[in-house]
């Protein structure tokens, strides 16, 4: 027995050998294999793979893509005096009255019949995708971008900034979303831009709240402090390091809420708010023909004037929700969907 240390020494850990061994390591087979291993794929690549396997999501995606395509090519787009997009998929001008008799039932010339003014319902439904679908996407894009920046700043700086900024979000949440949108539309009048504005104004708050919670979590990571240690500015720390790592639940929420916005716009349209009565927006069309929902005199029932626009709303919202659910599953995030129905 001895109290002296160091009588036994372990050798064989010379620097040179270790250095050689290690230099070879990254070029080894392990690193090559890693690329084929699905576990370590880039997350978005993995999400797309998973979406491809999900038939329901693919169907939904196909419907949404077709509708987007139709929205672009339904009528020519003219900017200023220049025709940007000359194609017109609609057989008739959707605003033109008297292209057929009043309330023609569906036939080969008018696949979805005609309405009370003899307008071609098919043309109107096709042209209507331009209003409903684009509003859904534009509102979501606007609300999500603003919400992410707002919530990002709030969560990143924290403290008093966070307290004040989140109270504003609470104020927005204090109103039922659809009612608030309705008030805004009644105040500023109908039309595309006011509708987008109204829905974006009530919609951003939920994105802000979601991303703030996520950011509080992400900013604990050491790479955030590492970026500060490198001398990065707050702006680049937030947008380069924090938000990209916190965005997943927002993507899910955004996909799901496109449908909600479309329903909200249709609901306002049905209530006679939003677009002018003659506009071929789906909700507005339903409103114009709502008296045909009941059987008319002599057992006449012009079901086609309301069923087709209603079907389109249903089809689009259903499809986008299927996509949203699949994205949610693929990202496997918990979404705190604080918002009820509407806006």
């Amino acid at each position, binding site marked *: 027995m001895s109290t002296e240390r160091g009588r036994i020494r372990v050798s064989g850990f010379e620097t040179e050998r270790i250095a050689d061994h290690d230099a070879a390591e990254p070029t080894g087979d392990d690193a090559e294999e890693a690329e084929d291993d699905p576990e370590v794929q880039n997350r978005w690549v993995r999400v797309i793979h998973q979406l491809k396997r999900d038939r329901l999501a693919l169907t939904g995606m196909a419907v949404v893509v077709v509708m987007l395509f139709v929205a672009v090519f339904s009528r020519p787009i003219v900017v200023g005096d220049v025709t940007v997009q000359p194609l017109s998929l609609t057989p008739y001008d959707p605003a033109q009255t008297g292209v057929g008799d009043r309330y023609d039932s569906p036939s080969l010339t008018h696949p979805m019949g005609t309405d009370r003014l003899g307008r071609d319902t098919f043309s109107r439904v096709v042209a209507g995708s331009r209003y409903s679908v684009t509003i859904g996407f534009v509102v979501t894009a606007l609300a999500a971008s603003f919400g992410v920046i707002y919530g990002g700043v709030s969560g990143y700086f924290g403290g008093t900034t966070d307290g004040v900024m989140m109270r504003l979000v609470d104020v927005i949440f204090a109103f039922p979303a659809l009612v608030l949108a309705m008030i805004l539309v009644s105040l500023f009048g109908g039309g595309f831009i006011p509708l987008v504005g109204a829905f974006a104004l009530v919609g951003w708050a939920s994105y802000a709240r979601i991303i703030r919670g996520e950011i509080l979590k992400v900013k604990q990571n050491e790479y955030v402090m590492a970026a500060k240690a*490198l001398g990065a500015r707050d702006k*680049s720390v937030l947008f380069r390091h924090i938000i990209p790592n916190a965005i997943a639940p927002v993507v899910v929420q955004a996909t799901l809420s496109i449908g909600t916005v479309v329903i909200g716009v249709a609901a306002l349209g049905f209530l006679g708010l939003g677009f002018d009565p003659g506009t071929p927006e789906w909700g507005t069309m339903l409103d114009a023909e709502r008296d045909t929902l009941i059987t008319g005199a002599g057992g006449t029932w012009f079901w086609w004037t309301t069923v087709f626009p209603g079907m389109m709303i249903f089809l689009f919202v259903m499809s986008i929700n299927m996509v949203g659910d699949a994205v949610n599953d693929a990202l496997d995030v918990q979404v705190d969907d604080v918002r009820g129905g509407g806006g």
Partner: protein
Amino acid sequence: MSTGPDRSGDPLLRTEGLQKYYETSSGFIESFLNRADQVKAVDGVDLEVYPGETLGVVGESGCGKTTLGRSMLRLIEPTGGSVTYHKRNEETGENETIEITDLSGSELRDLRTDVQYIFQDPFSSLNPRLTVGDIVGEPLDIHGILEGEERERRIYELLETVGLNPSHANRYPHEFSGGQRQRIGIARALAVDPELIVCDEPVSALDVSVQAQILNLLEDLQEEFDLAYVFIAHDLSVVEHISDRIAVMYLGELAEVGTTEEIFAEPYHPYTEALLSAIPEPDPLWEGNQIFLRGEVPSPMNPPSGCRFHTRCPRVIPPTDLDVDQPAFRGVMDLRLRLSGLEAADGLVTTADTDTDAGGVEDVTAMDVESAEALVRNTFDIPEWIGDGEADDAVSDAVRLLVDGEVDAANDRLEAVFESPCETRHPSSNHIRNTHEIACLRYDADAPGDRPAVGDAK
């Protein structure tokens, strides 16, 4: 470490009285009622780091090592004290003194090209969304050092320097092992060509074979780029391997600072002595006298008075007029510590303290004085006869008071006789030699009590 770097000039970085207190609560009501406590994570640390040297910082978990490293670079705001950095001006060759605690945001960003930080956890310190090339290139972008093709070339060069394959610049961090990730972190810190790197336990998260590789890499880089390191670790053998000088921390304060040789040889701070005795030894026939510290690290929220180590110190100083030997005095100190945190006398001795678990023996208030005294002396390792009449009387009196259930009175009785200077005096740093400082009253010429021979001690 052989000769070590030159420490005659100005230090590269100097902290003076560096403090970082955390508020335990930011709640409105608590701060309104002034009830918020402060956690004294780092409390008055004076350190110097010289160019090209490695300063090891060791201490138990939670003693404030990481907080010290981060507040030194103002990654977290220190609450007091100063940190000065001596910047070598390349053109004039003169030294410029920068007070880091006074820097504005943009000045602080400029300083980041001189001082860098390597993080403990190689898994959370790299952004999973960026490629390795972008991670290493980020400091180049931030400070506008290089652009375009030169930037690419510099990234490849850096990856090669730390022993990674440059062709992997387009891969993501999750494709690498822990050791490789730590190399990426090192490459990132090197990108700005710093003078000083604070390494916060850079090898603690790695397994032992990889630890050696990373340590050797750090040494090679130090030689190549003339870097200074502040090397934070809880593993003394790692620190011994890499450091020129070592600072030992206990509960937010420095216990001892000295060159590696000085720390590993006598005279010791009692805490360092305990730490050193805990280094594992592969020799099965080795029978070193390991020092087991009693109790736990006290809370930094309410640190002990005087010397912060006195609650656990195996060499706590007895009062001058008392003739007792060390283990007995330690026992009385433990008894007093237990009493001061006690509400009722029947909780004094718990079953965890005694091997005998006959029901009822723990409750001293239910015992007669003699058996209570035997139990107390046995539990706290106080011998039958301490060696000083006054001391023995005090212990007996205290036990008698305890049997009557008067905890505070018993504590006062003991304190009157057994108050150690370590409890009342805060030890200042005593220079044993030029480079060796020990913050312990045993080495303080003004303090009462016996002192070990200092000076030519081996």
